[in-house]
């Protein structure tokens, strides 16, 4: 029963009590007062003493405030975006030209350490084919990918994990067995990665040299497991250089992925 109904009931009771008290002078006074007290009790129930009603009261206004903050922030973004600026601000122009000027310079600077020339991107281009197995692979416990790379040929793997093996096989057979090393670069420095190919598959990946300003432990924890992103394990697990985004170590994760891609492109030759 909501509080307005209760209040109405209390008022009716109070009026009834009063009429009883007035109509029956002999015994009615007592009964009337009792009914009025009952009404008062009911009325009290509608006041904040009732916890449910009390919280309704409390949550109401704050929800309005929260909506206004969320609305206000979205409205601000829309207003600024709508005002636009692209072709009007000279600073933006300067920024544009600077960015494009530097872009070509950076590409030239970055490619040599990777040793891999244009072929660097080949594995990435091949990765659309690898996408389905990656999706299927993820939900599985991390233990299974650790088993997979243990030097087994794709045929053996098929035996262990029929679904994954069947799908993964088309994406991998290009790699030649051996150990491949390559560099990846980011604004924080360079990362050298070694990738070991066994039986045509990525058996293990490790950061062999970490020359970034920040520790590579960010993207490759010294103690694996614990549910934390471990990019070298992800490469083995997914059989591809596609690794997760690590907040706070985004650049390093990209450099790592690039290095893996470069190493894999060597394995393709």
């Amino acid at each position, binding site marked *: 029963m909501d509080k307005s109904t209760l209040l109405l009931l209390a008022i009716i009771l109070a009026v009834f009590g009063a009429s009883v008290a007035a109509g029956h002078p002999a015994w009615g006074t007592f009964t009337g007062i009792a009914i009025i007290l009952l009404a008062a009790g009911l009325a009290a129930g509608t006041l904040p003493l009732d916890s449910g009603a009390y919280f309704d009261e409390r949550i109401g206004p704050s929800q309005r405030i929260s909506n206004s903050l969320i609305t206000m922030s979205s409205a601000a973004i829309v207003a600024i975006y709508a005002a636009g600026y692209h072709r009007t601000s000279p600073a933006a122009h300067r920024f*544009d030209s600077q960015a494009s000027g530097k872009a070509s310079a950076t590409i030239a600077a970055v490619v040599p350490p990777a040793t891999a020339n244009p072929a660097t991107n080949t594995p990435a281009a091949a990765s659309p084919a690898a996408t389905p197995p990656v999706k299927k692979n993820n939900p599985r416990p991390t233990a299974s990918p650790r088993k997979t790379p243990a030097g087994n040929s794709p045929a053996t793997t098929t035996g262990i994990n029929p679904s994954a093996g069947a799908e993964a096989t088309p994406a991998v057979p290009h790699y030649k067995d051996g150990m491949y090393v390559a560099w990846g670069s980011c604004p924080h420095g360079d990362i050298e990665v070694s990738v070991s190919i066994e039986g045509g598959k990525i058996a293990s990946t490790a950061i062999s040299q970490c020359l970034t300003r920040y520790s590579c432990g960010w993207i490759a924890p010294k103690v694996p497991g614990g549910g934390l992103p471990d990019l070298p394990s992800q490469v083995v697990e997914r059989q591809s250089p596609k690794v997760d985004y690590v907040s706070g170590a985004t650049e390093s994760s990209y450099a790592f992925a690039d290095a893996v891609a470069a190493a894999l492109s060597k394995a393709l030759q």
Partner: protein
Amino acid sequence: MHLPMPSPQPYPKHSNKGVRRSQALMGTVVTVHLVGGEGTPEGATHHEKAVEHAFDWFGRVEECCTRFEAESEVMRLASQPGVPVRVSTILYEAVQFALAVAEESAGAFDPTVGYAMETRGFNRDHRSGRKIETALDPGASVSYRDVRLDPDNKTITLLRPLILDLGAVAKGLAVDLAARELQPFGNFAIDAGGDLYLGGCNPDGEPWSIGIRHPRRENELIDSLRVSDRAVCTSGDYERRNSTDDSHHILDPRRGSSAEDVASVTVVASNAMLADALATAAFVLGPDEGIRLFDRLSVEGLIVTPELKRYETRGMSEYH
């Protein structure tokens, strides 16, 4: 004068599918990753252009809101206390939002701590390394109530001499504007050092996976989240420590010292401006009040104390 970027590292990439680029902006490295577009050459160019436009927003917001450059709009405003100053839409909206958060958090978040921050050694432009020193009356204690907005004329009046610190709002705002620029493409990630916006899915078609740094152990993550179409902002006492004493970059405006009860705060919200501002407010409010604030404003959050005790909103489990 607008300083030339000392170390912009435009870094166009097509590996891992899509366009990915990083630049040093707003005192951090900003990375934009736009998924897709490799099908045709036109698609690739289109994507490159969009990423470029997304980056433009950072430069524009910084020009308006940085207190590290004497010529920025917010510093020009600081030099004219007592008079209504007509400002750009960006500055007006940023200040209006900052004041609303200040009101909502009862002053735990306060954009008028700029001068206090400057005098406490947070006075160096992260890009140029140049120091900024502003002559203000150091005795004056100011609060967000000393800022007046006129919505009709889009003017801001500083009732007392003060410097607005929009650090907790501007970076988030730039991320949101960049996100808006990339919205038509659906799948993208923007990372501006602790402020992230994750649109749609990663190249594998799954929600983006985001690691949250452990506030005390250098090489570990304390949690990892899976999010889509959400902003994630983490604020920690390990970032930007002051050189003179060991204070960090989040000031309790009510006490005038660094907030000490919290080691890191992560907020998941619909936009980065809100997430960043609320993370900063919760930092000052402490774990209990912080979580109450998140619940009240219907955002999700995780607060870690220096003793590594975790406090989180109930909805946070959705992102695990």
